[in-house]
């Protein structure tokens, strides 16, 4: 499948659309254009670039998630601190193209802004779910690419 994708990529004019179509079919909106941008950075000299980035992302975001979890468990709801964490999380997620995760981040920050603790907790749960799903899907994706 990868080879076919690559061939189509080379032969067609608008490569992005093709890739996105394939990707979207597989990823179903979990990843956006940014991910395609990253894929384009990959070349013979950097064949595993995207996978490396994804690995790094999950490692770093796991750390952020646990930080947020601790902050939430404390029950004190330091919205500023939470917002800071989430800002970082959103930045990474945006850079890798994790669109669903990014949406959850935005919602979480909005709840922080208005000081809605209940909303924060709820959104965070959803965020973790999306994050885990994305991780699984990407793992499968990279497996299939090899």
């Amino acid at each position, binding site marked *: 499948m990868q080879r076919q994708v690559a061939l189509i990529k080379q032969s067609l004019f608008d490569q992005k659309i093709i890739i996105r179509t394939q990707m979207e079919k597989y990823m179903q909106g979990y990843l956006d254009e940014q991910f395609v941008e*990253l894929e384009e*950075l990959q*070349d013979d*000299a*950097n064949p595993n670039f995207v996978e490396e980035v994804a690995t*790094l992302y999950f490692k770093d975001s796991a750390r952020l998630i646990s930080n947020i979890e601790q902050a939430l468990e404390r029950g004190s709801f330091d919205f500023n601190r939470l917002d800071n964490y989430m800002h970082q999380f959103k930045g990474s997620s*945006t850079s890798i193209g994790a669109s669903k995760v990014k949406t959850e981040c935005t919602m979480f920050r909005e709840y922080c802004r208005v000081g809605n603790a209940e909303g924060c907790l709820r959104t965070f749960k959803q965020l973790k779910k999306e994050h885990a799903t994305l991780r699984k899907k990407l793992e499968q994706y990279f497996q299939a690419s090899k």
Partner: protein
Amino acid sequence: MLNPGQGRGPDSGVAGGSSNSDPFPAGLRVLVVDDDPTCLMILERMLRTCLYRVTKCNRAEIALSLLRKNKNGFDIVISDVHMPDMDGFKLLEHVGLEMDLPVIMMSADDSKSVVLKGVTHGAVDYLIKPVRIEALKNIWQHVVRKKRNEWNVSEHSGSVEETGQREDGDNNSSSANNEGSWRSSRKRKEEEVDEQGGDDKEDASSLKKPRVVWSVELHQQFVAAVNQLGVDKAVPKKILEMMNVPGLTRENVASHLQKYRIYLRRLGGVSQHQGNMNHSFMTGQDPSFGPLSTLNGFDLQALAAAGQLPAQSLAQLQAAGLARPPSLSKPGMSVDQRSIFSFENPKIRHGQMMNSGGGGNKQMNLLHGVPMGMEPRQFAGGGQMRVQQQQQQLSGGRAVGQNVQSSGMMMPVGGGPSMLQQQQQVMLSSSVPRRSETSSGSRVLPAAATTQSVVFNNFSSELPRNSFPLASAPGISVSYQEEVNSSDAKGGAGFGNPSYDIFNSYPQQYNNNNDWDLQNMGMVFNSHQDTTASAAFSSSSSTQRTRAEHVQNHHQQQQFPSQSLNHMNGGGSVRVKSERVAETVTCPPATTLFQEQYNQEDLMSALLKQEGLPLVDNEFDFDGYSLDNIPV
């Protein structure tokens, strides 16, 4: 403009390798700073794809030390805004101040306030994450633009210098001299450029270099260096070393220094104040204010540089503003001028006050205070220009009036005399705490913003004492800057910057308050005219101190809303400065300076014309001092 033929032969470090015929911008040396490892990796990959030489860094402190160790090792810096160890804007200030490199800010945050903050702090660009490679492909333009400006400055200085260094003839004949020596200085410049051999420099040298102009940022660097060395002790060679501007020669600096000294003399100490202020900022006479000093100094320089113009324009504005309450301004002016210019010990009193907060900003504010209320629109226009200049120079963000600050400032402006007084009080009282804040290095623009209002207030309080007319504000502001420099004032935020920011952000407010503020000021002045003006003239430090105390007392007596108090915190330091300036300034010589300033083309005059305000020289009876051509 680039010569494709010029190859960046050497291995640019790109993973894929670069061909020897790669034209500029390949090989551009980029330092990227971001605490997010994912983003950092992606950016590095993207930049390498653009054939840049990338160094990545995840901590701002490391980035700064890298930059300091390799002063000329990088062409451009890209930094994230939110970083745990240091705020991105702070890094921006440092880089602009110490290395004068273009800095691009980036963030996932695309809110207008943050983007504006980047602008006011002098970032050359602001990228929203996720950063696309297309956005990175063109970052070289910022490098070239900056180098062009620097060359312009060098050329200008060179031409001036070639015309002969005269102690007092420069201002009068600099233009003519420049014409004649332009070619020779240009040749010299090109030689220097060729020797450097950098690709980008080579490219730039092929560009037509206009006459050297001491841009705002370059002048800021110059003033910072001078302040650090001490106005009287500054020698071109040392200044040149401190400035570390490629292509700038000792002769450029020498001629500029001459002009600067003349300018200072003309201001009758106002410039001295600036110089002092810069000095204090830069050197951090007060150790606790060290970090701030740097920033302040930088800002101060910017202010000074920009202030040359703005001061003039301010003067114009002030003059215009003063025109409104003509009765007040006229009589007071002469007195104020004297007081402004007779700064004998600017440092002493103001130093303390200035430390409290962005002194530089405050100084500007003083002057601005008067005209600000009057001509907010004018400032906005001028501010834009200055902002651009600032951006280019990546000046420390001090000058930048934070949005918050601006709002704070607005309040004082709109508050009228009582507000002003309150603000003044607030400033004074808050000056001390301010200092501690600033010394911690957490200086933020807010000071600038408040300073503006403070300045305004200061004037009202100051004027009564010294019977300074509003019109004299410009001179005063200049002196404030100097005083601030001399004093330990830390808050030397860009002199002109804060004012600009504020104006830009709140032109409406200022406009509305113009008349009211002026009137109020006038009222204040009137009431104070009776106060002993002798203090103003006495330049003794003790007098200054007394006056400062007096001012403080004066302020304390006034009531001030909590809001203004908060706002004024930033401005407190400014206020102090203004006081000092007023105290130390002696009038007469300054008048001519102002007149000259007003006459010179600058944003302010343009703005004034737009506003329909008469130029200051109508209002002030200056001696017709010929203003030194200190181009900004």
